[in-house]
């Protein structure tokens, strides 16, 4: 689909290969996974929907800002869209760097920024029905 969004299962090894260089001594990986409950509600599947072009633009901005702040670290981010089952990866963030401190820092900063600003929504499906949820796991309009 694109650099940052995909309808296909996430392949973390591919992302690592995209960013790693011979001078790297550290790769930090974050994988977000569909959990079987949220706020006490049982969850069997999650549907992810994005404002595609804007989500891509916002993720580009995250990458640019972190590249400026950590010039020796490279970052790959991929968010999956569509309907996912419990245990499937919804987002992968990979940061490669000569040293682990920067790799961890960039990986953490990237996932926090994604959650905060990238226009992606999720709808939970479970035995009690389906609902859109907000970042705190509360059901929302």
């Amino acid at each position, binding site marked *: 689909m694109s650099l940052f969004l995909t309808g296909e299962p996430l392949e973390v090894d591919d992302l690592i290969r995209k960013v790693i260089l011979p001078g790297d001594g550290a790769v930090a990986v974050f994988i*977000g996974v569909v959990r079987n409950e949220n706020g006490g509600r049982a969850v069997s599947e999650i549907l*992810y*929907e*994005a*404002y595609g*072009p*804007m*989500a891509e*633009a916002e993720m580009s901005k995250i990458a640019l800002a972190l590249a400026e702040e950590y010039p020796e670290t490279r970052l790959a981010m991929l*968010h999956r869209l569509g309907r996912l089952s419990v245990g499937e990866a*919804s*987002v992968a963030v990979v940061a490669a760097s000569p040293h682990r401190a920067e790799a961890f820092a960039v990986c953490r900063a990237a*996932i926090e920024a*994604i*959650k905060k*600003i*990238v*226009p*992606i*929504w*999720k*709808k939970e499906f479970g035995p009690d029905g389906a609902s*859109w*949820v*907000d*970042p705190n796991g509360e059901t*929302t*309009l």
Partner: protein
Amino acid sequence: VKVRILYFASFREARGLGEEERRVPDGATVEDLWQALRRELPELARLPGPPPAAVNREYVPHATLLREGDEVAFLPPIAGG
């Protein structure tokens, strides 16, 4: 002024469609459009506060003036990751 409105997630379901074109008065702001939509779709008023808005795929303040051809979206609470 003609703008294109995009609806996502719960807003798309509340509106029953993903996008539409709409005329707004000259000088109308993003907030004016939000208030108009809220009157038509009472479900939107269930939100605790006004949602973030995007014009042409950039976050903007609600005071932003709308221009011909703008792509406008109001974003329900995001939950990526």
